[in-house]
């Protein structure tokens, strides 16, 4: 293949100040990322935040307004898509309707002039559990089967980077889990860099080495899944990845390794190591499963902090009970109590106290106008404002 950007000595995929504007609308905003070679990288974000656009720029299907796409140390941002060692599993599958499943999967190999494709295609089809489907047309397959063909069609080329745009979106839960394991196995086996876009947080957290949360064209935070979950960098991440109780407060500086916070008339503290701001408006965050519910303040263990309120709702979901606790100032906090038999159930309508270990809290900077935030960010389209 002419000019194929260096077949083997790959290297990391780096996006440097990548920007894409459609007219006045900025879809991807000065994005910089490094994705180590051979890693499994998940890109999470609400619908319309620019994930597909980012992938398209890596694949070469969209020309960046500015910025670089580096593979190793070569800038491939201006390379034609068919010359990039990058393949995509498209969100819309984009299978060729006039070709059989076999020919769809063989397409990439044939274009690179590889003659004997039979073994490889058969192997690939059985990998995605579509043995015997080779002679069908895409229109004769179910949505999930088509998705697996799209996967096989990209994977067979063993690219340096595989871009997956919600490749498992149309699968039912069982097949989805199965394919996740399969994907992860393939990825570790062949050592291809996977860039995986998904709406499914659980999928992102279980599969990826690194998760990046994107919002309105920017990366809000990236890191190991546990780091993102335990110590989010922004209110958006705190409520996009799972759910957090964020209380609006004012920080008054660090003393003795603790940041003192006043929120809604009460005083709290957070270890300095878990604070991303120590002065001015802040959000004090605690995850619902880190909150414990008891009937009265004298049951709160030593060294814990507390908020009192009224239990307004309790939903029993088997492994846990999810309570809503309305505080004196009206905010409803979420509390997940593990159903492990250790804690008594709290009746709806009763006064209760929620407490937490300060080492489980975190402190984030806050816009002065921002108030409490306790509901998850819904995964729905972001407005088309710039």
């Amino acid at each position: 293949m002419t000019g194929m950007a260096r077949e083997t000595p790959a290297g990391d995929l780096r996006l440097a100040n990548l920007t894409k504007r459609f007219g006045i609308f900025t879809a991807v905003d000065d994005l910089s990322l490094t994705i180590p070679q051979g890693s499994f990288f998940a890109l999470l974000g609400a619908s319309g935040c620019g994930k597909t656009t980012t992938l398209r720029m890596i694949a070469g299907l969209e020309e960046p307004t500015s910025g670089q796409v580096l593979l190793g140390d070569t800038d491939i941002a201006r390379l034609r898509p068919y010359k990039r060692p990058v393949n995509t599993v498209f969100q819309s599958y984009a299978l060729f309707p006039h070709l059989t499943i076999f020919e769809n999967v063989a397409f990439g190999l044939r274009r690179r002039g590889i003659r004997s494709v039979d073994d490889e295609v058969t192997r690939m089809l059985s990998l995605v559990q579509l043995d015997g489907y080779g002679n069908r047309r895409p229109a004769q397959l179910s949505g999930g089967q088509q998705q697996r063909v799209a996967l096989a069609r990209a994977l067979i080329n063993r690219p340096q980077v595989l871009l997956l745009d919600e490749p498992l979106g149309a699968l039912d839960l069982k097949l989805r889990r199965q394919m996740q394991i399969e994907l992860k196995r393939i990825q570790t086996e062949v050592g291809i860099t996977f860039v995986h876009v998904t709406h499914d947080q659980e999928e992102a957290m279980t599969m990826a080495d690194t998760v990046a949360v994107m919002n309105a064209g920017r990366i809000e935070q990236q890191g190991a899944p546990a780091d993102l979950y335990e110590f989010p960098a922004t209110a958006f991440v705190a409520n996009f990845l799972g759910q957090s109780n964020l209380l609006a407060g004012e920080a008054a500086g660090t003393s003795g390794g603790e940041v003192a916070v006043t929120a809604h008339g009460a005083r709290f503290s957070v270890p300095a190591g878990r604070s991303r701001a120590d002065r001015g408006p802040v959000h004090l965050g605690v995850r619902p499963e880190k909150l414990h519910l008891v009937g009265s303040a004298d049951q709160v263990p030593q060294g814990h902090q507390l908020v009192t309120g009224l239990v307004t709702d309790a939903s029993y979901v088997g492994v846990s009970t999810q309570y809503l606790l309305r505080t004196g100032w009206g905010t409803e906090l979420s509390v997940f109590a593990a159903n492990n038999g250790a804690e008594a159930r709290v009746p709806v309508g009763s006064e209760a106290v929620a407490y937490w270990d300060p080492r489980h809290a975190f402190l984030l900077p806050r816009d002065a106008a921002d108030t409490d935030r306790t509901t998850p960010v819904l995964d729905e389209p972001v407005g088309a404002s710039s």
Partner: protein
Amino acid sequence: MTLLAPTGSGHPPPAPPAARSGRRRLLPYLLLLPGAAWLLIFFGVPLLQLAAASLYDPSGSLSTGYAMTWAFGNYPDVVQAYWPQLLRSFGYAGLALVLALLLGYPLAYAIAQKAGRWKNLLLVCVVAPMFTSFLVRTLAWKTILSDNGALVGLLRDVHLLAPDGRLLATPFAVVLGLTYNFLPFLVLPLYASLERLDPRLLEAATDLYASPAQAFRRVTLPLSMPGLVAGTLLFFIPASGDYINAELLGTPNEYMIGNVIDSAFLVRLDYPQGAALSFLLMAAILAVVFGYLRRAGTEEVL
């Protein structure tokens, strides 16, 4: 013919319950009735009449009347007399088809995929010439190509044409006329096919290492096959039977089979000959079309 059938899933809905199925089953035939009657009266009957006329005694005439003598000899006779015109018809129509494809495919592609909001305007431009009569359009070409027209003058000045060279009354003019007059019949079906082509498929092809040329060959072309087949037929069939272009833009040296049939019926009043030639032309076109469909149709499209 599956080629021209609309795409999308073609499965009929499950059979309705028995009570209503009788009327339901009749309905398609009732809908067919007017068209079938029309065809029977205005196509079937004249066709039989023509078939009979082609077997009349060739020595008869309009004034003395024709005798039905099952004169199959009319066929070899007309082939012997007019095979050059017959061959010329297909030669010119084929040449015009090649030219029309070279012009029409890129045109249809551009309108379908690249024209954006100009799409409708461009389509109107393709069809607009059809608003005037075929005859008038061809006469206009006669003026454009005429010996003292601006075009010939220019070509002579830049020595692309000999000082006494001409465009009118040459095979070139006839082929040009055919190309021009039937181009929309090729472009419209092609456009319809290319319009449906999902650009994301081309992106997928490029992503899978297909150069633009390969993407065209492997994706665009096969997916536009239904339109291409329909368009070439709609172009080729009337073009090979045409006589106006040869009549107005050519000389008897460029006459096609249509001209011979025209004169047999209207000038020489030799009905058996005209009828035999008509049938021959029809048979030849059918043979060409079936040969073509068998080849093009093997790569079953969609």
